[in-house]
């Protein structure tokens, strides 16, 4: 049985809205408005998960680079891998940690596989399109950044994100805002340098470069080691492509290490484009149109009233 989660519920709801929109007459293809497809020379990170040893150095580097608060446990404390939150799920990103490494014991595999988790910096981010105050920006360098001064703390982006990345400052009573990885945009990416996590890694699990070069590199590495890697680069096409992409081991396929393999290749915006295009029409044209109809329909009555009054 298919589990109903936040994402599939939202998808279902949106799909039915789109169906209604199509029935009304707007039978345009979902992508007719043209796909953005990402900035041509944007940067990215290719994560080779077969190399990760789960040392959590990237978590420490992120904490220092982003001046995040003191962690609950030391970064060399490996007991965090056993932590489970609601639903038996491993750790996720929080207001205090923009990246976390999780451990996956995969059946039939001698060693556990470690997976680093952070914002994937989508080519066409759902968080950005869902934000009604335009707090988000996709920079030409590839980072999805946001302006906390503009954020009103509505948490729509948390629902929109297909990867459940944005975290929330639940600890702040007066000014709660969204918190997430910005690919070290302000301090590093802007100057052509890789994010702190990438540079800190003792195993160089992550390769930093132009997204298009990374895709080529990934496929070549998969081709030269077919026994080692799953023949899929996660993030090349998922939800329209992401700046962070992943390679995994053949004995630890993506679906077994917490990746959602049913996201599809369409950017999330495509599911709602038609519906959203209808909104201005309904809100501006309909009131004028129906007021006109009403006036026309009641003109005779109004005349009669005028005559009888005189």
């Amino acid at each position, binding site marked *: 049985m298919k589990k109903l989660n936040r994402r599939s519920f939202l998808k279902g709801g949106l799909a039915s809205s789109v169906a209604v929109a199509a029935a009304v007459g707007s039978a345009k293809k979902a992508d007719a408005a043209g796909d953005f497809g990402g900035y041509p020379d944007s940067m990215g990170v290719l994560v080779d998960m077969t*190399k990760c*040893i789960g*040392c959590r*150095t990237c978590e*420490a*580097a992120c*904490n*220092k680079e982003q001046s995040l608060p*003191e*962690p*609950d*446990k*030391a*970064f*060399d*404390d490996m007991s965090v891998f056993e932590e489970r939150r609601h639903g038996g799920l491993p750790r996720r990103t929080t207001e205090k940690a923009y990246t976390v490494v999780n451990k996956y014991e995969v059946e039939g595999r001698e060693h556990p596989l470690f997976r680093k988790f952070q914002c994937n910096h989508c080519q066409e981010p759902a968080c950005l399109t869902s934000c009604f105050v335009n707090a988000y920006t996709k920079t030409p360098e590839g980072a999805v950044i946001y302006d906390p001064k503009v954020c009103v703390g509505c948490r729509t982006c948390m629902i929109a994100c297909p990867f459940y990345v944005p975290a929330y400052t639940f600890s702040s009573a007066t000014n709660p805002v969204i918190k997430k990885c910005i690919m070290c945009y302000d301090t590093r990416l802007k100057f*052509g*340098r*890789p994010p702190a996590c*990438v*540079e800190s*890694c*003792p*195993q*160089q699990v992550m*390769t*930093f*470069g*132009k997204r298009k*070069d990374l895709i080529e*590199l990934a496929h*070549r*590495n998969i081709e*030269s080691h077919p026994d080692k890697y799953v023949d899929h680069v996660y993030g090349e096409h998922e939800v329209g492509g992401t700046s962070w992409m992943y390679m995994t081991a053949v004995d630890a396929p993506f679906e077994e290490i917490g990746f959602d393999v049913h996201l599809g290749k369409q950017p999330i915006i495509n599911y709602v484009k038609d519906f959203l295009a209808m909104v201005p029409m309904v809100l501006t044209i309909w009131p004028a149109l129906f007021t006109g109809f009403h006036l026309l329909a009641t003109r005779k009555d109004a005349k009669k009233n005028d005559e009888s009054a005189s």
Partner: protein
Amino acid sequence: MGIKKRKLLGLALMAAMVSPWSLPGPASAEVFELDGMKNLYEGVSFDHDMHIEATGENCTECHHHTAGTAPTDPLCVTCHAKSPEIDNPSCKSCHVKDVFAAENMKKSWDTPLLHHRDKPGLKAAYHQNCLGCHEENGAPTGCTDCHAMTDAGEKFYNTGKYAPEPKTSGHGGGNH
């Protein structure tokens, strides 16, 4: 750096037993201090002789194709089946320390040698090369098994004297 003499007779015997291309003797008999991460960790004393012995004098185990012994990885063999020993086969002569410096990143991506494009930097070259073997042979694999953490390291990892106060779970479960 202290020079350690090893049992030359034993080495000669072993050398005589292995195939002809693995004959070149050890380039140096030294203990190296690997201190590329000295901001976070103390240096590692690397006993070259001991590793020569441990690998059965097959330099390829660590030096790929640069020490005169033939590589075994079919990908490398394509070009390097007969590559000669290079002048300086030390790790750092190929694996640069600051692999993320702009000029080094450009060099990596621009190289026509496809399989050298994602050549790791020095830190990763050590870890990638050492850890696999260490795991297989029961040698140390924990971070601090090889290099002790410095004070700055403890601060970076929020551990030791910089460790966070243990949190009590739930509300109202205070210590006082």
